[in-house]
């Protein structure tokens, strides 16, 4: 990261795009490292939060948008709170994740598969349907043994209803329409929905 940077790999408008989409000023970062020091997910990051901020400043678009950290961010926003320059680092991370997704850069596919499984049940029922989320996630990820160890407890405590709670009075269909319009617009704009 700190090694010599190949000038031709720098994207000079990248920081401007990130600033505009996140309403932040990434150039204000002076690398104090508070964001990284407080990050609970740093132990699974390939690029630390402060390195990502520096990467944005330097226009290292490829490195930043392909990094695993964007997907492992827990959105706890401890980084934003502790930034001495009041940069909402979590908002920058979310913006970068949105940018990466729109360009089909999915570095940690299972995380995205979980999100889609969740949103699929909302699209159909208008509300989350937990067993449906699990079933769809297992199908997508082929991780057949996901949380199998929890099944006996969950069944014993009767915590998960087998039937989905569908929003009544046309509510589920209204959510289906919101999701459809979102998908159609994303396709129109040429980005991953």
């Amino acid at each position, binding site marked *: 990261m700190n090694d010599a940077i190949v000038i031709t790999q720098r994207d000079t408008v990248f920081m401007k795009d990130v600033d505009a989409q996140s309403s932040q000023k990434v150039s204000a970062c002076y690398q104090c490292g508070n964001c990284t020091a407080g990050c609970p*997910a740093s132990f699974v990051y390939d690029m630390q939060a402060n390195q990502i901020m520096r990467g944005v400043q330097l226009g290292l678009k490829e490195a930043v948008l392909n990094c695993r950290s964007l997907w492992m961010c827990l959105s706890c926003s401890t980084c934003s709170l502790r930034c001495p320059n009041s940069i909402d680092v979590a908002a920058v991370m979310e913006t970068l994740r949105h940018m990466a*997704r729109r360009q089909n850069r999915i570095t940690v596919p299972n995380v995205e598969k979980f*999100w889609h499984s969740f949103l699929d049940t909302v699209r159909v029922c208008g*509300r*989350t349907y937990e067993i449906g989320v*699990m079933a769809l996630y297992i199908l997508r*990820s082929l991780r057949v043994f996901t*949380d199998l160890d929890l099944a006996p407890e969950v069944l014993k405590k009767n915590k998960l209803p087998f039937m989905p709670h569908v929003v009544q009075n046309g*509510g589920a269909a209204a959510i289906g329409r919101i999701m459809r319009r979102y998908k159609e617009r994303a396709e129109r704009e040429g980005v991953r929905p």
Partner: protein
Amino acid sequence: MKTTVAYYPGCSAHGFSVDYEKSTQAVCGALGIRLNDIPDWNCCGSTPAHAVDTELSAALCVRNLDNAVKADANELLTPCPSCLSNLRHAAKRMEDPRFRARVDELLDNPAPAVFPEVISVMQGIARRFDANALAERVKKPLKPLRLATYYGCLMSRPAEIMDFGDPENPTLMESMLTACGAEVVDFPLKTVCCGASFGIPERAVTARLSGRILALAADMRADALVVACPLCQMNLDLRQKQAEHAADAIFAMPVLYFTQAMGLALGVPPGRLGIEKLRVNANGLIDKIEAAASGSTAPVEGSRP
């Protein structure tokens, strides 16, 4: 202005946090706070929606806010910090006309100009009952219990959106539990992340982060962790064995919703608080409270499971 309250239970209220819902209803019932559901409410989109797209997330939230407005509500209570965060973020982002226009495109009809204020059930109770008012209503003091409070990330952060006191050291739950008679420890990890929604796709992350919280609560000799978030509760309670396995330790730490702890203090029967739904058995805590309330001085040895 008269306050008309609407209630947004959130999806988990009908799923894995049915005990939170039950105890919220019981406590609000005991305090005379009426909770009328927003008609035909839908999912707020939770983490997956805003992780994918903030406009989609806002559209899902705004439909709920719109239904609350149609029900004449000017205050919206929700027990779940994730729902609270999404609803408050959506209302804030809708102040930007360009954002609002993009969200309106996704909705059946344009969003209303003004939204009701969205606050947590915890704040809703605190607004109506200060510590003294709560203490007056306590029937079975939590005196024998040493509790650690855990808020998670979303209740207090980002500070400018959530407006929940100090974003790294909120103290509302402590005030309420102290009013209920409990001894509350000063818990340093109270707003440090439990691993959130990574329990399914990245289990090791959640097991490690939750394990740290449970280990500290055990080290501080807390009888239980008290939480306000369905996802935190699931990570700390239902997934406690996964955290124990990762940490190679036994915690056996009961994890109660704050409404369950308050309910016990207000004299609500445990059966109406969903205590039996907790994976880590909390009956030992009830025995201690009962023993203290009946004036028994007999030691309650080995009551922790």
